[in-house]
């Protein structure tokens, strides 16, 4: 049955089709044919959009957006991958086809900075009063940010001698 | 005479012990040890030693004082194994009137707290009062009609002669005990002070000394409600210890009934009160009137 699906998809769209193992399929497609592909695949029984995720390929200067789709009748999981440019990350929304995509795209907008045209609800979601670059990008340094905003106590040798003294007193060594 | 003056405060102290017993019984039913039975005394003393944190307006501070005054005034008319401080013809209705001042004071005070949960709690409390007051009053009327007196002390003395009113007017006693269950504020009728739904309703902004005053009011209200019921239906008491024993037995039975039931919705509770206890009370009134008014 994977052969039938492969023939259907490759007949209509220029896609790369790969069967990873039983019930897992990876499809790579270019960014202009994502929305037609989604409406076509929804009519074939893949009615559940599980999630949308994003990967930051900083060396190739691209974002990769992955759509996870599931069909209850065939029990197949499709991972649909597209690449968009990293310098001006603009894409189209999938919420006309799957209404639940609005929330996933809101999160990707906040964490990666991708602008989904047509999504009316790209407002702050998890972070409050955020004033830096989107934190899931690979050029954001969380350790530097944490050290400059929050104070923490370093575990020096002095602290360790105190801990060993307490452990010896309690007989726990 | 001095005992009669001190009796309201002794009754409030005993009410705190009753609340402690209620927590102990509740814990033992759930297969765990509970707090000691004098735990509520520690609670009230601790609450009186805290400072207030919320300041909302004049009536917010005056409401608890009004409710404590109301309950002390009502407790001065209740006979506890002897004559109370004031006793005259018609004091049954005066007592029932004064018993409403206390929740009214709490409602006024909580209405001025700027919290929507308090308003929801007061609305539920007043709706519930609309439900249970009418069967309670109609259940009391047959006694007044048959015995031709409205003085509680005389009703008690007539019961020593004729037998307890719970045997003479069983249907009215049944209606009144269901209404009594709601007056005590136990499950399934504790909608006003529902800790998990509306964060204890009218008490939500009170902390510290005002909460201590409101706990004393609740303790006094337990004894007032069960005391009225014991005096009117169970023949009063010949001394203070029999009074405490009888009120504790009634409180214990109602507590056990409340253990197995969840909380009703306020609309369902109101419909229940206007169907069953009201019907039973009217039936009891009819039976008493037909049975002969001498």
């Amino acid at each position, binding site marked *: 049955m994977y052969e039938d699906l492969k023939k259907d998809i490759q007949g209509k769209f220029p896609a790369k089709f790969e069967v990873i193992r039983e019930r897992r399929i990876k499809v790579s497609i270019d960014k202009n044919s994502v929305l037609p592909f989604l409406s076509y695949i929804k009519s074939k029984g893949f009615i559940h959009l599980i999630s949308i995720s994003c990967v930051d390929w900083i060396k190739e200067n691209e974002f990769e957006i992955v759509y996870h789709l599931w069909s209850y009748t065939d029990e197949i999981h499709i991972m649909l991958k597209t690449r968009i440019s990293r310098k001006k990350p603009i894409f189209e929304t999938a919420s006309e086809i799957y209404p639940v995509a609005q929330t996933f795209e809101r999160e990707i907008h906040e964490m990666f900075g991708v602008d989904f045209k047509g999504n009316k609800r790209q407002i702050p979601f998890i972070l409050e*009063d955020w004033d830096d670059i989107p934190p899931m990008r690979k050029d954001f340094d969380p350790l530097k940010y944490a050290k400059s905003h929050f*104070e923490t106590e370093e575990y020096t040798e002095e602290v360790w001698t105190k801990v060993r003294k307490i452990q010896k007193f309690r007989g726990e060594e | 005479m001095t005992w009669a003056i001190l009796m309201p405060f002794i009754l409030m102290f005993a009410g705190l012990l009753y609340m402690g017993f209620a927590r102990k019984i509740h814990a033992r039913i759930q297969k765990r040890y509970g707090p000691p039975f004098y735990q509520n005394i*520690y609670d009230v003393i601790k609450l009186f030693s805290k*400072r207030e944190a919320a300041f909302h307006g004049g009536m917010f501070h005056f409401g608890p004082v009004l409710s404590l005054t109301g309950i002390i005034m009502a407790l001065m008319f209740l006979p506890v194994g002897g004559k109370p401080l004031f006793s005259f013809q018609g004091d049954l209705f005066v007592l029932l009137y004064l018993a409403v001042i206390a929740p009214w004071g709490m409602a006024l005070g909580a209405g001025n707290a700027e919290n929507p949960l308090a308003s929801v709690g007061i609305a539920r409390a007043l709706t519930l009062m609309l439900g249970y007051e009418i069967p309670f009053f109609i259940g009391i009327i047959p006694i007044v009609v048959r015995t031709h007196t409205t003085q509680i002390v005389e009703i008690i003395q007539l019961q020593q002669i004729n037998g307890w009113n719970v045997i003479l007017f069983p249907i009215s006693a049944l209606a009144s005990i269901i209404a009594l269950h709601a007056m005590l504020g136990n499950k399934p009728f504790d909608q006003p002070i529902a800790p998990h739904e509306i964060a204890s309703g009218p008490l939500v902004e009170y902390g510290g000394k005002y909460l201590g005053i409101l706990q004393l009011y609740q303790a006094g209200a337990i004894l007032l409600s069960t005391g009225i019921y014991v005096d009117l239906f169970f023949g009063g008491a010949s001394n203070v210890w029999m009074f405490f024993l009888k009120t504790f037995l009634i409180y214990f039975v109602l507590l056990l009934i409340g253990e197995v039931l969840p909380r009703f919705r306020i609309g369902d509770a109101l419909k229940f009160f206007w169907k069953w206890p009201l019907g039973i009370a009217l039936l009891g009134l009819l039976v008493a009137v037909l049975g002969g008014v001498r």
Partner: protein
Amino acid sequence: MSGIGKTSRIKSLWVTYYVTGCGGIELLPVITSRFDAERFGIITSATPRQSDVLVVSGFLTTKTLRRIIRTYEQMPDPKYVVALGACTINGGIYWDSYSTADKLELYIPVDVYIAGCMPRPESIFMGFAHLMAMIKGDKADGWKRYHENYKWYKKNQDKALGNSKKWRVRDV
């Protein structure tokens, strides 16, 4: 604070459990029938305005830290704070994250720390016993420290949590 007043503060502690993260899962056996905490007088209070103790268990994101500070300022004096778990002591396993604050004692005064990830119910009871001993010896004065050093606490809060007019209840 004389004898009966102090004894009643020890024997009836009303607690607000602020469960921010994973620490709350070990509190459930403590307050229900397995390890019964009500026999010591420790019950859950309905609102922060009625409680004495604030138990902070779990990691402190910036979003919840603003709400914790507002809750702490709503409680009436005298009040105590118990910090549960390793994330409130020095950051725990989330110490290098961009959204968690590390040390709780820079933002509100803490009286008792209970170490562990998560601490077992027996450790939580030992922590409460330690708090009761501190109240008896007049050492649990975190609320006084907050009033006296408010400027220092406000400086730390502003540095970590940003703009101060939006979420603060009072401005000293």
